[in-house]
């Protein structure tokens, strides 16, 4: 009876300590995440918008490219009569 109790106690202690290890990792990760200095969405959004505007003219899918410079220009051509 005593042996069985000791055995169960050992198991509880082992799973208890692996829970502790896991919990320590979680808390350490949360402490790290809580320490991040964040910016307001208004600031972040303004920066995203500014990047779009600054690079809009260099974006071929926004501006389109003339067929002479388009590397994927159509292979077939219809001529206008």
């Amino acid at each position, binding site marked *: 009876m005593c042996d069985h109790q000791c055995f169960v106690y050992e198991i509880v202690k082992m799973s*208890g300590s692996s*829970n*502790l290890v896991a*919990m*320590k990792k*979680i*808390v*350490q*990760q*949360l*402490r*790290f*995440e*809580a*320490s*991040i*200095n*964040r*910016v*307001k*969405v*208004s*600031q*972040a*959004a*303004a*920066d*995203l*918008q500014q*990047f*779009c*505007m*600054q*690079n*809009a003219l*260099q*974006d*071929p*899918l*926004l*501006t*389109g*490219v*003339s*067929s*002479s410079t*388009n*590397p*994927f*220009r*159509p292979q*077939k*051509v*219809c*001529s*206008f*009569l």
Partner: protein
Amino acid sequence: MRFSINPEMATQEVQPNETLTNLKAESDTLKTKLEDERAKLHDVELHQVAEKVDGLGQFIMKTRRTLKGHGNKVLCMDWCKDKRRIVSSSQDGKVIVWDAFTTNKEHAVTMPCTWVMACAYAPSGCAVACGGLDNKCSVYPLSLDKNENLAAKKKSVAMHTNYLSACSFTNSDMQILTSSGDGTCALWDVESGQLLQSFHGHAADVLCLDLAPSETGNTFVSGGCDKKANVWDMRSGQCIQSFETHESDINSVRYYPSGDAFASGSDDATCRLYDLRADREVAIYSKESIIFGASSVDFSLSGRLLFGGYNDYTINVWDVLKGTRVSILFGHENRVSTLRLSPDGTAFCSGSWDHTLRVRDRGYHLEPVTSATVCLILVSSSSCLSLMPVPSPFYFIRTASFITFGP
């Protein structure tokens, strides 16, 4: 790092005498604190900030090339830095290297497994990496000699304990980053096959990854079946940020071109934008009519457009700032499984379960016409002319030598 850290707090070690109860209490406090912090900074929505920005107007894209040759579902593709070659992989185990300008197949390899879910082009253009149900990532040097058997020079680099879902070379041919159904990501040395760093934190299969643009440092983002998107420090292996707002598997993640944000596509039928400095989701791209999952996302060069390939066979094009859809692209006859912008941003390629890949672009320069009414000249195939008055404003297609119409 994209943000600054309070150093004292970040490195505080957990003391040995802290009990489980204390730690659980602290964990709950920290979680609440994080939620409050993030909520406080949520002072406005992205689309509100973008209200004054001009809308994008009429948006037409055309399919310029259709790459046919795979015998089964196309699962993944990647562009070569030369902007013309593409590598694609499929369910039947075939990996094909194409010249997208001519649509010719330049190389073909048969993998020893089916479902090759990942493929990537090396930065030098001299090799491709691929893998899938074999749980490995293998590198094949591309030979100039068409007759040489590529499979003979194959090098096994990565070994996972479940399927390979994605792979990407870092800035050089020397290192590969992989993600796997075993729930981990890993960084490997190509030459030796050695594991350089592993990334643990996902609670289920990792489905996708993307490396930060090189200017912004050594981080990457991964998305998984645990609905989380995690940002990792490549050197330390630590998860530095985590986002959990999707309601289902995250199939695709892609960094915004500036590196300050990333987009995700999910089985919950939405795409979302997460800003790294605000540390939160800042936009959702969804519509009630879109009920099928998004399998693959990518941005245009300026970051203004987000392309999403969906399981309902379509590609939706979103205005990233305003949150609205600007176009819906048809053409594929089955799920769109993979989608990537070309290196110079002039086109994008989509791969599908319909066995094909399509390359699309905007085509012609478009200019608005100021006169009140415009006559549109139609040229039919039998070369007869008809004139139709069309209400303005209308975009007049200006080309020197020809006018074409059609799909």
